[in-house]
Every structure is written in C-alpha cells, then in structure tokens.
C-alpha cells in the first residue's frame, strides 16, 4: 500500500449563509465600490442614478488598485456604513 502526504492546505472553510437580500431599495444605503479599473466609473454612474431613482442612498468607495483585494479598513467601513455593496468590474 502506498502512502502519500497531502500537498493541499487541508483547509476546512467555515460555510456562512449569504446575507438575506434586502426586500426593497428605498431607504437603503448602497455602497458602490470602484475597483479602479478603466471605465468602471461609467458603469457605477449609471447604477447610482438608477438606485437614487428608486429611493436608495448611494455612497461611493474606491479600491487603491484593481490588482489587490480591498484593504480590510475599507471593507469594514463599507460594512458599517451600508446595507449592501455593488462592485464594478470593468474595462
């Protein structure tokens, strides 16, 4: 019998349920996160207009660079300030 050593992380990630979808947008504060890709702002501008028209408040955030995960402080701030976040991937 051959024994092999596991080359993987042997990680057992904790599964967390998704947050419930907000029943309505009116009165919610929605974060729009620009990841600093070209033309992401075009997409987010349009979304902002649509959200405001539905009674939501929009807050804008920007990642320092699209190549790295959002800094922990930024993620915390968004979670504290807003009820939902929309992230723009674009080019």
């Amino acid at each position: 019998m051959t024994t092999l050593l596991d080359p993987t992380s042997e990680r057992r990630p904790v599964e967390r349920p998704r947050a419930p979808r907000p029943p309505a947008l009116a009165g919610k504060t929605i974060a729009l996160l620009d990841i600093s890709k070209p033309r992401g702002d075009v997409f987010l501008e349009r979304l902002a207009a649509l959200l405001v028209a539905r009674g939501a408040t929009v807050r804008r955030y920007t990642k320092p660079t699209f190549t790295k995960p959002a800094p922990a402080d930024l993620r915390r701030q968004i979670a504290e300030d807003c009820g939902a976040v929309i992230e723009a991937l674009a080019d």
Partner: protein
Amino acid sequence: MVSVAPRLPDGLVAVVKRDCPTCCLVAPVLGEIAAGGRALTVYTQDDPEFPPAVAPRIDDHELVVSWHHHIETVPTLLRVEHGVEVARTEGWSRADWEALAGVTPLGAGLPPHRPGCGSRSVDPSLTDALRARFEGDRLRARRIELGAVEDEIETAFERGWTDGLPVVPPTPARVLRMLDGTRRAPDEVVAVVPPDLVPVTVEKVAINAVMAGCKPEYLPVVLAAVEAACTDAFNMHGLLCTTFFSGPVIIVNGPIAARIGMNSGLNCLGQGNRANSTIGRALQLVIRNIGGGAPGGIDRATLGSPGKHTFCFAEDEAGSPWQPLSVERGFAAGASTVTLFAGHGPSAIVDQISRTPESLARTFAVKLRAAFHPKLVMAMGAVLVVSPEHARVFAAAGWSKARLRAELDALLMIDGAELARGAGGIDEGVPAQLAAGRKLPKFLPGDLAIVHAGGSAGMFSAIIEGWVSGARGSQLTTREVIA
C-alpha cells in the same frame, strides 16, 4: 510509529549481525565477556540466534535500537551508565575492546584489528523506509493511503494536485529526503499563500517540491521563491487572478545557482535543466495546492502562457561584464538570491549586424517600445535578458549597465502625439489629455530590469514582458536564499 530512542540497558552493549565476518570473528569474545561476569546485552540485526553463546540477546532486525542509537558499523561495542552511552568502539580492536570492557585479555587468538561491516540501519536500500518509520512523526501532513489498485500518478491528477503534467508521488520517504535540503524546521511557517491566505509550512512546500521533481538541494531556493511571491509587493494574488498572460518568473543569483546545477547559459529559458524546470514548477504547485489558485477558479487568464508551468533561470554572472541583478538590488556580492518578476514571454530581439553600442541600444529600444502595445506606456515592466554576444558589444565600448539603461531611457521617451488614442488609426493608446504636447517614458523608473544570460553563440537577446508594475500591480521582489 516509534520515534523515541529505546533506553539501553546499563553495562556493555554490543550490536552485531551474522552477515558480517568481523561479528562472527568476535562472537567468542562476547562469550568471554559474558563468562567473565560483566553485564552484557547483545542486539542482533539479522539472525536472532546469533551469536549463539550469549544471553541476553535481543532481536533488533526491525533496527529500532540500531537506528535510534546511530549504529553505523557492526560490531559496535558501547558502555552504558544510567541509560546513557559513555563509550563506543566500532569494528574489532583488541586494545579498544579491552579498555572499554575492562576485561583483559580478550580474543587472545584473534588478530589485533579487524574493520567492521556496515550496520543494516545505514543500508542505503533500507534508509528511506527506516526514516519514514522512525522520523515520520516529524511530518504533520494528512496521510492518504492508496488502495492496491490505485495508480499513484493518476490519483494525483484525480485529486487536482497537478499542473497538467504528471507529478512525483509525495511519499513520506521522499518528503523526508526533501527536508534534508534545509535546516529549517518542517513546521516553520514560510509565508501566507494567496488567494486563500493559508499559512504554508516548510513541510508543505517540501511536499510540493517533491511533486514538482525537485532535488533536496533546490528546496532553499523554492522556499525563498515562495516567500518572495507571497509579499504584498509582489502581489501573487493579483498576478494569479488577472486575465493577463503573466506568472511568476524566478531569476536566481549567487553561488547557489552553480551549486545546484542551474542553467544560465545555452537554452537557459528553455527546457532540459532539472533545477530550472522544477523550481518554478514547485512555486506554481504551492500556489495551486496551498493557496487554492487554479485556472478556472481564481486564475482567470484569457490565454495564459507556457511559462506558467515554470519560468526560472539563473543569471550568468561569471560571463557578465556587469553587476548582477542581486547586487543592483542591494544584496552583497556572493549572496544567493531569488528575484521574482511578474512576466511572460520571452520575446525575441534579433540584431546580428550592430557592432556599436549605440546601434544595438536602438534595436533594444524599438523592441521594448513594442512591448504590450507600442502605444501603451508607464504601466508595465520588463526584464531585458542580454545575451553574451550582445553584451560583448557594450562591454567592448565600456558601457556599464547603468549607461545602457540611461541610453534606453532616453530612446524610450516617446512623443505623446504618437501615443494618443486614435493616433495612427488605432483607438488603443494613452488618453489625449495625458499625451498632449509632451513626451512620455515607456517605463517608469525601476520598471526595466537588465540581466545577462544565454549561450555563447547568437546575437539574440530577449524581453520578458511584465504585468502591471509598481505599487498598483507587482514589484520586482528579491529574497536571500537561506539554507
């Protein structure tokens, strides 16, 4: 699994095997010692009935005692007090045996000296299995027992451990041998590997290095490469998840390159050298298996590049007219380093005519200008690999590397009018407001590295194109190789 050395009985202890003429020779001597009333315990490695005249005689064919007490030769005679070895002699030497046993005379009819034989515990055909048995508890990784009909290579594919090529099965014996390549403890954490941000131990890197086909002496280079890759500056996370072509390119400097047989010459960016081929592969397997970064998952490359299997070479320092990359980057001459660059390629520079540095620098510049897109600037880096026949042109004219870089910087200041979006009938390019009325550099300071490598014939150099450079993307990252 035994890992603690069994306590030896006090008095005299002999370790012997029947398959050793010297042991057979001294068998009567052991009888003399026992008959003289000295406390004597004999461990026998092959035949539990040997030597016939002695008791107590303990069967050590499992080699538990021999392994743990580092018996290299039989016969070995020890004196043990309070469970601790205080004296040892190997082979047969009447004077040494008499002194150690405190019995005179011994073996009157024997020659005064006779060398012993190798202990079974150091038999090369057994040591891997013995290490796995006795040192296996140094290993913490989960053990996977394969069924009798399971093919170990196919299992690696089925479990998603490979880069598409077969891997060497990571058995405990192979991993223990790999760990001999470093003084670092198996449970030491080397880095936190993206994208899953998992701490990786020396042992887990060693497992992946075994799979990649590395020799133990490559392990320190692999460890340094993993450390460098998992820094914020190098940004392996972003490099992995980009739609772009690039992957980690490893450039090795210093004496370790020659010591482990790396290729810095003929075909050094190609196939055929085990160290070049497997070190880069080991890093990619760590990213895949530990970090969880695999194509189709977090790796989103549109096309990728063959260098994502492995892209690793050494700089030719001995033949270079210039300072090595490691020294330029602040490390002492003679230090062994790995430098990681986020890149892909190579792309060829052909110039078989130029014999002046001015002309050759212009060739380099026009090719560098075309990197990524001739109208894109200040966004990405490159490594220029200058071959010996091209370097000779600069050396003959007294051009240092700094001089070449300064000339290239000047040649690569490009008129904004040529770069603007729409210029030349090409929509791609620099936004008009950035380009208007000025010259822009192709590369930002620090984004063009120059190294010397390649075979002695051929007026060809190479560009290894990069990915997003600087703090926005990936920065050239160097780590010293620690044994």
